[in-house]
Structure formats: C-alpha cells, structure tokens
C-alpha cells in the first residue's frame, strides 16, 4: 500500500498491503492487511487474500467449502470510521455512531475545525473526527492505550491527528517539547499552538479538565465543548464546573439510537382459521354421532358397561392453511406475508449523557 494514502480515503481496488475490512456478518467484521500469502479463515471456510487482490472494494468473495461443499462468502470492504467502529470488539468502550454523529454536528465539525479529544480510548471517535476536521488533538492518559493508538493512527494514515500521552485532568492540554506526543514542532517553538474551536471530553472527571481548557481554545471565536458522562451525578458536577468557568448555553441531552430489522409475519385470515376448525368439527361430529349411537345402545342394554366399550377416536386432521407443525420459512411464497419491522432484541438504552456548552473568551471587535 502506498503509505502516503490513508486506507480510510476513497480507494477502489483491493491491493497488496491494504488495510481492508472483511464483512462476515454485521456483528462480525474483521480487519486484515491484504497479503497474497495469507488466508482468511472463518468457520464457514477459508478465503485466500490472493482471490481479493485486484478486485474492486465491496466485492463478494465466494467459495465452496471443501468438506461440505457449501456455498460460502464474505465481502471485502474499504474501512470507513463507521465500519471501523462496527469492527471493534463489543467489549470495548466506544462512542457509538449515533452519539458521535450528533456530537460532531452540534460542534459544527468541518474542515475548518480544530478539535480536542480526551481521552482517545479505542480511537474509534478519533477516526470520525479525523475524516472531517482540519486537525484533531487527541489525549490519552493510559500509556498502553497511547502506544496502541499512536501505532494505529500511523498505520491508518491520519496525518491530521496529533496524539499526546497526558492526564489532562491534572496536567492540562498544552503540548510542550519533550512531552510524549506525535506533535511536530516547528522551528524552535516552545509549545504547540492549538486554538481548538471544538472540545470533546470523554473523561471520568471532566470537571477537573474544564478549567484547563482556556489555555488551548481559540480566543476570538465561539468554542463548543461536549462532556460525555454515563452517570447523572457527573453531569451535575460538570455543569457546575462549566458555569464557574464562564461557559454558556449549557444543555445536556441523551441520544437514543435504535436499529430495526425488516421481517415478515404470515397473514392468517379468519376464514382460513374457520375452515380449519370446520375440518375439526366434521371429525368431531362423526364422533358425536358414533357416541350417541353408543350411548343409546348402553342405555338400552342394562348389562353393558359404558366405560369399557371402546370410544372411537376421530382421525387427525390434515387441513392446515398455516402450515403449523411443519416449520414454515419466513417469506415462503406459498403463504401470504405482511412486512413488519422488529427492533433489535437488546437495545443500547443508554450510552452517556452529553453536556454541551459554548464560550467566547475574547469578545473584542476586529476591523
């Protein structure tokens, strides 16, 4: 792969060395580095990277499994921040797309934005920021995660991301020479010029970091901040800190994202149900007739024992317009279907509370 081109920028043809995402299912997306000598193994079969190279991104790669001779396939996708987020292990704490989308929109992110993100975490939101904004300053306090993200951002070709190892709550955001950072210092500047106009704080105690923002945000513009906190008590302390530090238009919101599946439910009409019961009744009536004769016989014959005489069993019905008993595949063309939507069985009912606020440090007039 041409190392100057990010695997996240638009590319068309799968090439040796590319970072690609293999889509097995929505819940199972795996990153690979395309290598002609490698195989991609799934429980449904093995796919050679060689069969991918040269094909356009989005290609379905199909095989027949040797053992069971089954048709099996994957799709080779080009990474985007959203697909990358989907590919991360479910246990990882990540900012999901409904939240990250809204945050980016509320902070009006675009190529003219300079954004601060703390902390980097899994780096999934960093990718979405990096796609859109002019420059991203990301801070991570955990050294292992910092090293991992540093490598990942390099591999993913995100030149507009500066990553710094820092506990921003105690040490603030200013980046100096000799700090552990990917920042490239110009000439003999003693510290980085940041001038962020959007800030995202995904920290356990954002109230410790808020007072330290004044040093690094743009002075003469309206700057937005979003604090991402799971508990309501954190929101309360965050609002307190924001108010104290002169941030205004404070508003907390929640995002609720749902995914809907498209399904079908069989149309089962009353008429069909009645027809089925008529079939049952016909059998029963035969039985009643037989029982009546039997009963009359018993009453006539004083000696016969009603209990012992055999009670005739009606034959089982065959008629069933709904294919009960036999398992009907959803959408089977022999039946009528109604399209319905079904929400995921388990929804993400809460991610975090998002507290937004805005500030203009210097309101003086320019001419």
């Amino acid at each position: 792969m041409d190392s100057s081109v990010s695997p996240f920028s638009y590319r068309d043809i799968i090439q040796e060395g590319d970072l690609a995402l293999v889509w097995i299912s929505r819940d199972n997306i795996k990153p690979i580095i395309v290598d002609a000598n490698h195989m991609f193994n799934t429980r449904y079969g093995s796919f050679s990277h060689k069969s991918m190279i040269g094909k356009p991104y989005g290609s379905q790669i199909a095989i027949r499994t040797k053992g069971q001779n089954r048709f099996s396939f994957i799709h080779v996708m080009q990474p985007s921040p959203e697909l990358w987020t989907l590919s991360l292990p479910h246990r990882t704490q990540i900012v999901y797309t409904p939240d990250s989308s809204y945050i980016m929109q509320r902070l009006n992110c675009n190529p003219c934005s300079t954004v601060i993100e703390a902390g980097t975490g899994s780096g999934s939101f960093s990718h979405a920021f990096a796609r859109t904004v002019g420059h991203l300053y990301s801070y991570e306090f955990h050294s292992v995660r910092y090293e991992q993200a540093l490598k990942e951002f390099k591999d993913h070709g995100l030149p507009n991301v500066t990553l710094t190892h820092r506990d921003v709550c105690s040490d603030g955001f200013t980046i100096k020479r000799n700090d552990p950072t990917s920042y490239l210092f110009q000439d003999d500047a003693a510290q980085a010029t940041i001038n962020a106009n959007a800030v995202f704080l995904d920290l356990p105690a954002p109230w410790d970091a808020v007072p330290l923002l004044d040093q690094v945000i743009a002075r003469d513009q309206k700057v937005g901040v979003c604090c991402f906190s799971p508990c309501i008590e954190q929101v309360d302390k965050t609002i307190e800190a924001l108010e104290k530090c002169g941030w205004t238009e404070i508003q907390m919101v929640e995002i609720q994202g749902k995914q809907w599946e498209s399904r079908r439910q069989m149309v089962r009409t009353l008429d069909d149900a009645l027809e089925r019961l008529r079939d049952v009744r016909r059998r029963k009536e035969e039985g009643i007739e037989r029982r009546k004769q039997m009963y009359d016989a018993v009453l006539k014959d004083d000696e016969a024992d009603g209990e012992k005489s055999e009670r005739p069993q009606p034959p089982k019905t065959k008629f069933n317009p709904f294919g009960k008993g036999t398992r009907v595949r959803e959408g089977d063309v022999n039946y009528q279907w109604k399209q319905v939507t079904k929400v995921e069985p388990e929804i993400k009912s809460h991610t975090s509370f998002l507290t937004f606020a805005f500030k203009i440090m210097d309101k003086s007039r320019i001419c």
Partner: protein
Amino acid sequence: MDYLHHITADQHVILKLPSGNWKIVELKPHTSVSLGKFGAFQVDDIIGYPLGTQFEIYYENQSQPNDDDPKNKNRTPVGKVRIMDEDVGGSTEGSELSNVNSSANNMNLINIGNEIQAMTSEQIEELKRQSISGEEIVAKMIESHSAFHKKTLQSQEKYLNRKKRKFAKYFTVEYLSASFLLQWLLEKGDTQKVLDMSEETVAMLLNVANIRSEGQYLCMDETGGLLVYFMLERMFGGDNNSSHTGKIVVLHENEHANLDLLKYSNYSEKFINDHVKTVSLLDFFEPPNESEIDSYFKPIPKEEARQLKAGKKNAYQRRLKWYYNQHEIVQLSTKSQYDALIIASTLQLSTLVPLLAEKVHGSRPVVCYSQFKEILLELTHTLYTDLRFLAPSISETRVRPYQSVRGKLHPLMTMRGGGGYLMWAHRVIPAPEPPAHETED
C-alpha cells in the same frame, strides 16, 4: 387468604436467585428444592413466612454433606435457611462503565479481575462442592488474587459484590404475580411465546380496556394464558373465594384453547371453570342450533339419573356435560354482550376485529395487542372506515429502568427491545345521517 401474603404449602411461588434468574416451584410439603449452585432447602422450613422474604441457605456442618457416596457427588446438599434482613443484590447491572471512576486512580485497572486470578475454576468448583458459603469462597479468592491490593477502594468493593453475587446462597420467595410470570418467561427466552409482550404494555392494556371485577370480557389470548392470568389477577387478586362475578370468554382458533400457563396459578380448577369460558371461533361464529342440541340429548330427571348403574351413569354424566356446554356456547356467542374486546392474536386483526366487535356493548373499549406496529396500522385503517369504532389509535409504552444506586444513577446501558403495541378504540353506535333541512333562503 393467607396464601396471598404468606408462603403456603402446595402453593406455586417464584424464587429469585442471586444470579437474577427466576425459578417457579410448587411447594410440596416434606420435600426439598434444589437451586443448583445456590444450594437446596427444605420446603417445610420456609412455610409460614411472608411472601417476599429473602432466605439464606447455610450449612451447619461443612464436612457432613461431603460423604463418600459417588451418587451424591453432584447432588446439591440440603442446607438450613435463615431470614436475611438486608437486601442483597440490588439493581446494579453487570456491564461496567469505563469512565465513572476518577482517572487518577484508574490507571492500573485495565482488565483486572479476569486476568489476574490465581485460583483455577476447578478449585472454585471444588469449593462450591464442599458447600462452603459464598463469603468464604470470596475470602479464599481474595487471598489468591495477586493484584487485589492494587485496586482502588471503589473497585475492590465492586469486585467483591460481583463475586459475592456469584457464590452467595440465597433466594427470595415471591408471590407468583402475572408480572413475575411474564418476567420468568422472558428470561427463559420465551419472548415469542408471549408475542414479545412487555409488562408495561399489558399494564396499559388492562387499564385502557377498563378491566373490572364485574366485567364480562371477550378475549383472544395467543400467549398461552398469560394475558388471561393478567386479567384474572387484576379482577380477583388471586382470591379463590372472591365474590366478584367477572368472566372471561376466551375464543380460540385451535380445537382447544391454550391456557397452559394457568397451571402455575394458584386458582382452583373450580374457580377457573367459573370465571374462564373457552369457545372456538367456529362455535362462536356458527354456534350450535339449540333444537339440534336437544335432539341429540335430553336430560332425564335427577332422581332417575341417580339410579343409573355405574357405567351408564358415567356415560350419562359425560353427555350431560356436553349438553350444558353446548347450551353455554349458544349463550356466550349469541346472547351475550361484552364489556370489552381484548385480543392478543396473530390472526389477521383487520378481518377479525370488525366481526368480534359486534358483540361489544356501546361505549366499551376494543383493545388489540400486536408485537408489530404495522399489523395495527392495517387494522386502524380498516376501523377508520367503520363507524362502529371511535378514534382508533396506536400506542407504544416503554419502561426505562435505571441503575438506582445513589451517586451512580443512570439508565441501564442495555435493555430488551420490543414490547409490542396496542390499538385502542371504543365501540360506538352510529346514527343514521339526519335528513337535510330544507334550505331557508
């Protein structure tokens, strides 16, 4: 009515286990109930305590159940019980939150817990087999947990609570309410069996259907009797001796109604026979002819019947039951008007409801449950054009539970989707359009 408030012999109750799971048991006297890894207890030991009591299982002599009989190796030893006065295992949830703790003392906390644990699972299993109490297992685990002292106070607490929940031997005996029965089914994975119905949706159904102790209700229930149980509980409160006269007429599309779940209720057979009537859809729409019924069978005078011989008597009684049943069907399908129509069925509602609603009194509610909004959409479009229905509308009700721990309040991170929808309308009686006045100008 002690059985409504106190644990009673031969009662069905539901047990809440430390895992958060539920178990329904029938309390047969002089038997024991096993809760698997959470221990076992004698039914007789819990009879008479208030329903809702939480018990701890303890073992006085730890070595005793560990006998040499290999048959008993996997049998849960039966312990003694004592009342727990403090509630254990509130509403905290399993999933951890990354950014709740202060960052300063959080640096060492990645992946702690699972990775740095010196005891093997075999060792833990052995301890459990030895029926050592939860507290003790946890104590042993802490000993062997190399990084425990590195944890912050808060995360130590968290860790302990999690482990305690995992090994503690306690249970709560609850009254088997309709809500608990539903919760049990959902946790068992029987979501589809109950048409994905949620407690909040059926609660809304009971209220908008105006369920009262004296009502006569026409009902279809495809949830195996769960809906009927909800209605019975609302109408009679589990009281077998209730003087209330309400009745539920359950229509069914199969040969027999499926009300299987009522077997877990504590209503007597007689009570259910008195208050729940089942009629097939065909019998309801094409009821038997009264004179035909009479032509098949005529009851003989009681005196005469009593003198029949054993065999004959049985045959006669069966026929008599059939006779009364047929006449009851005629009564329920042609001579009754109902106080509400309540449907939870996957039959096409737009063909069903207009026909059934004919049997509903004016001003009474028609309420349909469906797992899918689209089904009710089709239904309401049908009902809009039918003047016998006032203002059909679709409602969605969802509960959002919180982790209700002070200082850590937040909505649960995940919850069940779904829960279904309701269509609510009122049966009304259209008037003919009045003639136009002659124009005056």
